């Protein structure tokens, strides 16, 4: 079954420290993976997707098929990065399966 696992419910780092939000997946075939972010009291928004290999707000994510992972990384965390982060993969046409989310807190 297609599944996304985010092992950390909460993650707390200090400003300027590196941050890595973990995401593992199970999927038969070539997965299409995304990271979505939800800032406090705002709608979910796309942060990045692996097919575009882009860097958004300093975040990057590399698909590792051997480890079935798509971890989100940023070398220097900022306070405004504090948010809820969701990893997701596409199952079939247009159906996104989400992980349970990781709440990131960046302390001053």
């Amino acid at each position, binding site marked *: 079954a297609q599944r996304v696992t985010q092992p950390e419910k909460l993650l707390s780092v200090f400003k300027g420290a590196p941050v890595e939000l973990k995401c593992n997946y199970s999927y038969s075939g070539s997965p299409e993976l995304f990271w979505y972010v939800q800032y406090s009291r705002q709608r*979910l928004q796309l942060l990045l997707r692996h*097919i575009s290999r882009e860097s958004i707000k300093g975040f990057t994510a590399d698909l590792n098929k051997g480890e079935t992972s798509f971890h989100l990384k940023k070398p220097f965390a900022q306070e405004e990065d504090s948010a809820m982060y969701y990893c997701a993969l*596409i199952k079939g*046409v*247009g159906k*996104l399966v989400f992980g349970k989310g990781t709440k990131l807190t960046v302390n001053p």
Partner: protein
Amino acid sequence: DAGITQSPRHKVTETGTPVTLRCHQTENHRYMYWYRQDPGHGLRLIHYSYGVKDTDKGEVSDGYSVSRSKTEDFLLTLESATSSQTSVYFCAISESGSANSPLHFGNGTRLTVT
């Protein structure tokens, strides 16, 4: 931001009453979705639509029904609300449903069933 409007934004209702949530889009996108967001569960797909009158179930569809009579509107109905349906409901849209057309979300509807 994508033109997605959810109504109402907040709703408190009693157990056993019917409730309808509305999602309206101005983007003319083909795909529309209803998710619920619960602590510890993330977002779970309730139902989705791939065109007018074309809908299908998601992973947590029991107790919910949907209708899409126009491209721009996708309605979610709780036939007889239960306390377990207290949640935040998000509508989302996608132009093609592919990885090149990611989901855009509405602001959510917070539903409380007492």
